[in-house]
């Protein structure tokens, strides 16, 4: 029986990909932590062990799926960590760089294997370099070409349990435990037991009749991984304990296909890693992650569920409308003709209906909230990739940069997390490239040599705030202004506030030719970043103090599908304005409306607020009220704009539905919603409405650039 008969391969590949992605992410994080120990002569054993385990799991799963190249590179890397944890290799700068590179090679290989793509270039070159590197420290490293060859060598070596090896291993475990208990760093293993070096000598198990020899210990790891999946354990749990242990005792297993660890050897080897870790206190986070029981669910299924809940919300509103109307009609009728008796039964029914509709509303709300929560994922998923990126970029630019991350656990809707990665990445790159100055410059300015980039996320009301701040040079206003004049956005005579100058960088095409705000010369400007955030119904803001640094702030909604809206009437149609954009609504005498440069404005608490008549913008037949104007004040980048409507119709929770793409994108409209009575209300897209209304003139464009 070949191993592939045990499982649906494609499903396992999917699982492999997900699991490996997470492990590679964890490897990245661990390598970054490990890097702090470079040239210090000490090591955090827990980190090395965690890396070893992660690689071991990848190797095992790859072996199961016969991804030979992945397996081989993982094996070689694992070997290096083995040397490290045995203190047979010092941790050097070049070593850690090689390991970082190895992680990338592995990532590329995994991708190629999973997608059936072509093998990435340079793998052989890399493995050669890795071999050469390891060979300096371990004469056996080159000999261990890979598990497969070794298995063949020992083909006739069918000892089911090597008691000596198990005993040696137990001794090693006890030594490690003792060391851990005393809080000592894990140093030299006595050369005799050499459990891991001996590991790749497992006999081909009798149960394996497949033509190709199988790495028993890899297969075991894969089976463990499968079981971990079946148990619904978080993938992070998979690498936890059994793996490092499984390596030395693997020869004891007669059959790789047998998933349950052999009782006599299984539990014991589990001990060393966690125990050692507990001793140095670095483990708790990982352990906590393991305890969370999770399952993977296709996001499409959640989307469908959310859609259905949307329908439910609509009908809930509808039913309470009906109940309300019924109650009023009956009340009115009985009062009118005094036939109280005739309507008694009906009144009771109406009352019942009203009660159960209230109950229905409550349950629906709870379902809705639960579904929203299910779709929430921590922003850390995106943040996780930055430490490595900043490290590499900073190195390449010859800068010294610390990245501080806070609030990685802040969660928001999966869709938003997915979409926000790209803009965040541009901003972080921007901070590294153009924000933080080179060390010498920093010193000459009296700043510490190393710059700091802070990533922070937190909840604020119904929004998530993400901040990216650096302590670099800030935006050079003079240069931005000069550039703005050069490309004709403004003229010499324009008097712009600092804020207005900063806004210039969001003009499409502004940044591409200049180094001030250019994102690594890739032709992707800040305008794209801003546009992406606005598309997510977010708000984007920049604060910059010259010489002190720049802070980007984005405010994002927790979710996109259901929002609070203010309903307004314009020319007999009901429009919805998302409440997050609304500051207040005002009823103002027509006489208070003034005209400046042909545009209408009002003065509100000393601030001049331009007006947009929604009816006229939408070219509706909306006659002006001679006495008063109803104004919804909306906020945009700290500015205020007044939308003139016919009347306010209260707030309501609405489910956003996209307009059909047959209609296409329409300026000022972001979608539609179905109201409780079945009628449709279009949702006003405040950003595009204002941008479109002020789209023409140059001056107003400067004023509202980036909207």
């Amino acid at each position, binding site marked *: 029986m070949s191993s592939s008969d045990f499982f649906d391969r494609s499903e396992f590949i999917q699982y492999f990909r997900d699991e490996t992605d997470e492990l590679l992410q964890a490897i990245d994080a661990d390598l970054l932590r490990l890097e702090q120990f470079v040239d210090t002569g000490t090591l955090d054993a827990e980190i090395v062990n965690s890396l070893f385990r992660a690689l071991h799991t990848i190797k095992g799963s790859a072996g199961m799926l016969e991804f030979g190249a992945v397996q081989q590179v993982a094996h070689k890397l694992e070997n290096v960590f083995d040397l490290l944890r045995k203190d047979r290799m010092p941790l050097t700068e070049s070593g850690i760089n090689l390991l970082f590179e190895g992680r990338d090679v592995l990532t590329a290989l995994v991708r190629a294997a999973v997608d059936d793509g072509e093998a990435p270039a340079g793998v052989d070159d890399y493995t050669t370099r890795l071999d050469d590197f390891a060979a300096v420290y371990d004469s056996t490293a080159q000999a261990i070409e890979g598990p497969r060859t070794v298995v063949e060598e020992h083909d006739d070596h069918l000892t089911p349990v090597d008691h000596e090896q198990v005993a040696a291993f137990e001794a090693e475990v006890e030594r490690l435990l003792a060391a851990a208990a005393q809080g000592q760093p894990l140093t030299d293993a006595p050369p005799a037991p050499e459990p891991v070096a001996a590991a790749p000598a497992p006999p081909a198990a009798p149960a394996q009749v497949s033509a190709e020899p199988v790495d028993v210990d890899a297969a075991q790891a894969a089976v463990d991984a499968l079981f971990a999946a079946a148990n619904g354990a978080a993938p992070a749990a998979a690498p936890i304990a059994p793996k490092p242990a499984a390596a030395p005792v693997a020869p004891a297993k007669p059959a790789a296909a047998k998933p349950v660890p052999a009782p006599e050897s299984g539990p014991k080897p589990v001990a060393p890693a966690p125990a050692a870790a507990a001793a140095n206190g670095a483990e708790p986070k990982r352990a906590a992650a393991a305890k969370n029981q999770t399952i993977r669910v296709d996001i499409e299924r959640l989307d469908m569920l959310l859609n259905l809940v949307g329908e439910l919300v609509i009908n809930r509103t509808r039913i309470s409308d009906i109940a309300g109307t019924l109650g009023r009609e009956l009340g009115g009728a009985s009062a009118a003709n005094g036939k109280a008796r005739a309507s008694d039964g009906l009144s009771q029914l109406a009352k019942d209906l009203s009660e159960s509709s209230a109950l229905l509303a409550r349950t629906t709300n709870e379902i809705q909230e639960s579904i929203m929560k299910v779709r929430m994922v921590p922003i850390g998923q995106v943040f996780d990739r930055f430490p490595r990126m900043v490290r590499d970029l900073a190195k390449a630019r010859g800068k010294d940069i610390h990245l501080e991350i806070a609030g990685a656990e802040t969660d928001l809707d999966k869709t938003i997390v997915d979409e926000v990665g790209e803009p965040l990445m541009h901003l972080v790159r921007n901070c590294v490239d153009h924000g933080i100055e080179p060390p010498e410059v920093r010193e000459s300015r009296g700043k510490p040599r190393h710059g700091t980039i802070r990533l922070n996320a937190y909840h604020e009301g119904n929004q998530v705030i993400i901040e990216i701040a650096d302590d670099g040079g800030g935006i050079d206003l003079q240069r931005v202004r000069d550039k703005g004049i050069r490309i004709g956005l403004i003229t010499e005579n324009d008097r712009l506030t600092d804020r207005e100058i900063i806004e210039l960088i969001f003009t499409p095409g502004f940044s591409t030719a200049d180094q001030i705000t250019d994102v690594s010369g890739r032709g992707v400007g800040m305008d794209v970043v801003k*546009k992406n955030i606005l598309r997510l119904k977010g708000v984007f803001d920049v604060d910059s103090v010259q010489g002190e640094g720049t802070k980007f702030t984005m405010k994002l909604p927790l979710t996109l599908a259901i929002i609070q809206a203010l309903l307004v009437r314009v020319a007999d149609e009901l429009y919805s304005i998302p409440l997050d954009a609304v500051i207040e609504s005002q009823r103002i005498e027509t006489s208070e409306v003034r005209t400046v440069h042909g545009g209408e404005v009002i003065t509100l608490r000393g601030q001049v607020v331009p007006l947009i008549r929604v009816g006229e913008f*939408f070219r*509706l037949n909306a006659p002006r009220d001679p006495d008063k104007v109803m104004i919804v004040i909306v906020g945009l980048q700290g500015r205020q704009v007044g939308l003139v409507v016919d009347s306010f119709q209260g707030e309501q929770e609405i489910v956003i539905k996209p*307009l*059909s793409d*047959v*209609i296409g994108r*329409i300026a000022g*409209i972001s979608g539609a919603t179905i109201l409780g009575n079945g009628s449709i209300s279009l949702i006003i897209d405040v950003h595009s409405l204002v941008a479109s209304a002020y789209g023409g003139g140059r001056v107003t*464009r400067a004023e509202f650039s980036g909207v």
Partner: protein
Amino acid sequence: MSETVQVVSFKLGSEEYGVEIAQVQEINRMVAVTHVPRAPQFMEGVINLRGQLIPIIDLRARFGMPRVEHTKNTRIVVTDIGAKRVGMVVDSVSEVLRLATDAIEDAPEMITGVDTEYIRGVGKIEDRLIILLDLAKIITGTEKRELEAADVDAVPVG
């Protein structure tokens, strides 16, 4: 015996049109249509079809015919074109016809009412001429025009 196609026939003015039955999802009486501002002028708006938002095209406007008041015979023919569901307002729906494929001819030059771009052919049944529409073109045309409109109305998003 030649092959036949089943066609839903409807009227715009005095002319009779047909749409292949497989593309017709349902036929509804006229309902309240929510106007979508700044949309192409032949877009009548959107309707709520059992919780689904369906865009409605005024076929008269699409073909450049004069608009008329809706009557009790006015219908919305809901069609599925690829993955898109679109409703079309027509003066009245006549019947479901069987047309022999060899009785369908290419669109002749003489047809003046409708831009020949949207016509797949003309079917003859007894004395009647049924103009068969190419629905996909009606929508692609929509998008094309929409893009043109967007150019005129370019929004400087920055």
